[in-house]
């Protein structure tokens, strides 16, 4: 969803998903998995990441995506150990 702003830009809502990269040890995911197993759930491959909801002022959706990718590269994710995925709200 987006809201028009006076200056020709709009407010774009987005969700950023940050995950531990494949192959990177995820002790938090392991602990959650072990706890779920103790509860009797037949789970495997549990990984714990992070969800960041945000609103960004952008000219259009491409601009929003570019800005958010830059946010991820500089702060929201550590590219050495994490991958990220950006979803714009419909």
């Amino acid at each position, binding site marked *: 969803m987006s809201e028009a702003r006076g200056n020709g830009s709009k407010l774009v809502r987005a969700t950023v998903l940050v995950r531990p990269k494949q192959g*990177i*040890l995820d*002790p*938090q995911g*392991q*602990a959650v998995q072990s706890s779920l197993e103790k509860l009797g759930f037949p789970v495997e491959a549990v990984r714990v990441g*992070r969800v960041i909801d945000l609103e960004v002022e952008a000219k259009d959706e491409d601009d929003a995506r570019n800005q958010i990718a830059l946010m991820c590269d*500089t*702060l*929201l994710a*550590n590219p*050495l*150990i994490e991958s990220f995925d950006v979803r714009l709200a419909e």
Partner: protein
Amino acid sequence: MNERPIVAVIQFPGSNDDRDAAWALGALGAEAATVWHGALQLPEETGAVILPGGFSYGDYLRSGAIASQALVMPAIRRFAADGGPVLGICNGFQILCEARLLPGALRPNHQLEFVCRDVAVRVESTDSLFMSRCEIDQELVIPVKHGEGAWYVDEGTFVQLAARGQIVLRYTEDVNGSLGNVAGVVNEAGNVMGLMPHPEHAVDPLLGSADGGLLLAALVDAAAERTLGVGADRAGALVEDVT
């Protein structure tokens, strides 16, 4: 001019070993200058910088991530680029990795426990200024206290770092799941170092070990050489005077 070299100790919201670092520096013949994270410049005559341990910004997002973007960081980058000695201890190591001044990233301990005890580390390389008072294969006893100390880089980078002598300290046992049991690394130029153990808690034999004093005294030597133009061994007598 001040006869003691000035070492800037950076204070972030949530730093908690800044005063211990300042005390240790004083005991080793330096003058610690506490610098707030919002400062745009380091004090004139700064001879070295320490980023102390703690939980800057509550470890929000990732340990060290938010501090790596603090206002003071450009001044530290300039100082490091000019060859100035910069030492990151524990959270300071995490900050330097997040700032990409050091290779790698610190992940949660594999055992998911906060580890808080004395550990032995082995000296792997003495090429950098931080190791000028140590010998290869020397074992140092220095305490650790961290929940996110598992250092990680990709395999190719690891091989390169080892070949270039950038892996300076390794634990003698698996302490936290750190790749290759790495406890401390330096940058390629050898003037920026980070380590998870706390040398500032090991400068007085009365507290169990004075081995951390070897690293900090080497930093003080380098600070003195940089700003006062005096040679090494300046802090030598002082190490023994601590007790």
